[in-house]
């Protein structure tokens, strides 16, 4: 953690807009952990941009007093990429839901991993579509242990006869895409979440934090009790830099690990390369359009 003098407190990050989430929504816990992690890192709100897509969780930027960008459904990552790639001096935090990030926006994830820009992507995973009132999401889960949908399939509003699609595993996908920091949080463990977010904000490269954030209004299956029961702490001896071990942990057959799962330290970042390039080119005589035209004489 940073040891710089404390200029910003949690209060520095609270905006005037009051969150409009339902009572009991997990996103409240995530928001307050985020405030704390930002304070821990002493992020300057005027140099921070919080980017989101569309969904209950994606309303978050409005509740932070930094710069914010509330985009369209599923495009938070490429928007953030444009910000960070062109303004490396800014701190960029991306937030959103599981539908936003893993369904409509899922195609952008591996490419964010490839670019490995310094960004923190915090997914509030409630295993459903909250804002549109309870449809199945790619992470909507069957009761753990049996993944066979024949056994007590969950009946979502678009799957009244039970789910017929397997759920996807964001952590395994993130590791396979070689994201350089992969973690899972849980909004009902605020201190741990704060700690994970603090680490992620300090990580150099792209960090994904899939966070269980219960939706009591639309998802009565994956309640806070469910998560409390099914999650476990990442074991002390887990080596997050071991990709194989990380993959096994992420695909644990009987529970969901909470903590930092995978780290690829020193993974090259598009940004490093970009800057090296800018430095290299800065040494050349300044380019002008007049000069360019000479080639076409």
């Amino acid at each position: 953690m940073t040891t710089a003098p404390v200029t910003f407190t949690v209060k520095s990050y609270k905006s005037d807009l009051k969150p409009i989430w339902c009572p009991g929504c997990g996103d409240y816990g995530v928001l307050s952990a985020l405030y704390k992690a930002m304070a821990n890192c002493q992020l300057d709100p005027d140099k921070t941009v919080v980017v989101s897509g569309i969904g209950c969780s994606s309303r978050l930027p409005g509740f932070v007093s930094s710069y914010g960008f509330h985009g369209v459904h599923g495009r938070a990552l490429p928007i953030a990429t444009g910000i960070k790639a062109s303004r490396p001096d800014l701190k960029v935090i991306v937030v959103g839901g599981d539908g936003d990030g893993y369904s409509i926006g899922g195609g952008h994830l591996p490419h964010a991993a490839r670019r490995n820009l310094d960004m923190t992507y915090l997914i509030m995973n409630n295993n459903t579509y909250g804002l549109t009132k309870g449809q199945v999401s790619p992470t909507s889960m069957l009761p753990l242990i049996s993944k066979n949908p024949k056994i007590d399939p969950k009946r979502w509003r678009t799957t009244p006869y039970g789910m017929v699609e397997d759920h996807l595993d964001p952590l395994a996908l993130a590791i396979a895409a070689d994201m350089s920091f992969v973690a899972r949080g849980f909004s009902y463990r605020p201190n741990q979440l704060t700690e994970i977010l603090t680490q992620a904000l300090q990580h150099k490269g792209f960090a994904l934090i899939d966070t269980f954030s219960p939706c009591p209004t639309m998802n009565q299956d994956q309640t806070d009790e469910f998560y409390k029961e099914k999650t476990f702490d990442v074991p002390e001896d887990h080596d997050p830099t071991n990709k194989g071990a990380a993959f096994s942990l992420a695909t644990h057959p009987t529970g969901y690990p909470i903590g930092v799962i995978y780290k690829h330290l020193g993974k090259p970042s598009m940004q490093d390369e970009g800057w090296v390039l800018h430095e290299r080119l800065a040494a050349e005589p300044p380019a002008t359009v007049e000069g360019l035209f000479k080639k076409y004489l």
Partner: protein
Amino acid sequence: MAVRTTELTTDVTIRLVGESGEGTISLGELAARMLTMLGLEICTFQTFPAEIKGGTVMFQVRARAGAVYSEGDAANILVALTEDGYHLMGGNLAEDGIVLYDSDVFTPTPAPGRWDLGMPITSMAKAEKDALKAEMEGEQVARLPAPKNIVGLGALLTLIDAPLTPAEQYITDLFGRKGEGIVRMNIRALHSGANRVKQEIGTHRTPHIKPQERTTPVITVSGNQMVAMGALAGGLGFFGGYPITPATEIMEFLAKELPRFGGDLIQAEDEIAALAMLCGASYAGKKVMTSTSGPGLSLMVELINFAGQAEIPLVICDVQRGGASTGMPTKTSQGDLNLAVYGVHNESPHIVFAASSVEDCFWAAIDALNLAETYQCPVILLSDQALATRKNTLPTPDFSAVKTVERIKPAAEDLGPNFRRYLDTATGISAMAIPGTTGGAYTATGIEHDEIGNPGYTPQLAKKMKNKRFRKLETLQKDQAADFAHVYPHKGEGLADVGIIAFGSTEGVLREAAERAEAEGISTAHLHLRLLSPLPLAQIEAFVASCKTILVPELNYTGQLAGLLRANVDIKLHAYHKDEGVPFVARELFDQIRALASQN
């Protein structure tokens, strides 16, 4: 040897057809280069097959002693390297046209008036290569392609009675670093082509343009190159794009040059991501652009609308191509106008602009970036395949005329916790804080919002904020529209017999048709629209009032500009439109003008 008759002309059109990847394009480019070196102005046109390899390519170069408006129509000389090419693109020759064909490959059926000059180009080239092989053994020579294009060049230059010396010099420069042997082979090939023509020429009439003296140097550039250079001149800071024919060249050009100007470029995973990156980078304070074509523009619709609603400046250069869906990717069209103008759900303001010539591509890119900054909304800049790949000789642009607009930053006293990013002003334009500005923090959003940016849905707020956003377009119409509606007035008094309203790449060929009409006594005015949305209504109305009848020619199936005009202006017009993948030729437009004039 009999005596040839060279016909002194000021205007010659040469068409080359052959198999893709077999040197046809390079022969055309060489010929164009030589004509430029003779002080002539040139305009080129090419069509590619959409096949990966193989398929017929066509390259046409027109040269004039003086400004050249279009790639020409009937060819004076056709160089046919394949039979397929000959059949597919060999029509439309001048009455006394010449067909120079590779007699190793095929022999055309003779046609009256035409001179068919057969030459075994393949074997002549092979002979030169073999000669070199005999001189110097080795892998390198064996893998060389036979210099068919250089044999053809020698023949072509001799046909138009042009000197060979510039070509010799050029060959020496071009192949110099490949070694002396290769230079030798090519120079021999050049002469072998030339000599063969001299032998055959007899009393045939051939066209000859007098070399011109150039006072100022010219550049030879394509529309795509000029868009890219205009963007650099306009202050581009970030480019995100995804490859697509025929727009890719803009991205490839900028991938190389933009970093030298301090900017960044990312090849995105798709067009949606490309435009999303633009939104982010623009919000972060950069001038941003992407280039695409129809299928990519289609994917961008959702975010264009977002940027209009959230008031984010950005430029999309849409290089239109032929056909709906994947259609005819290597052919031309002006078919995306409707999508550009109307392609948002519900309504948010954006601007549609069109480049009208290779030269204008430079200025249009600058204008587009400036308009985006001024009105804080997306600008769609229309180009098309023909314009993008067209090469023109042009004077170097006058850089002192380049003006760039910078982002309107909030005044210090307006900053603070309740900074009103979306302030409802008289012009509709409000200051935009860039992240990093203390007290400028706000949330950009596509949800309906109040002046601060907080969501709100009352009818009153919806009305107020929509008015604010659309008021920017009214400001544009008031302040700048006149600059973007170029009028070529008719000569003489009174009403013009025919008024032409058009947009985009047809400007040159329309100028040519109009001048021909004027020459034949039909007074013809021409309004060429660079700004298409919002329309410069006052200017259009004034123009319409100055003409007896209005012709709206365009390269699409349903007459999109005609529809747009009718929807917005009280106008009677004659629509002329077709969409077959190829540009207009001056003759057909002239016919339209004449037919209309005769109905007056």
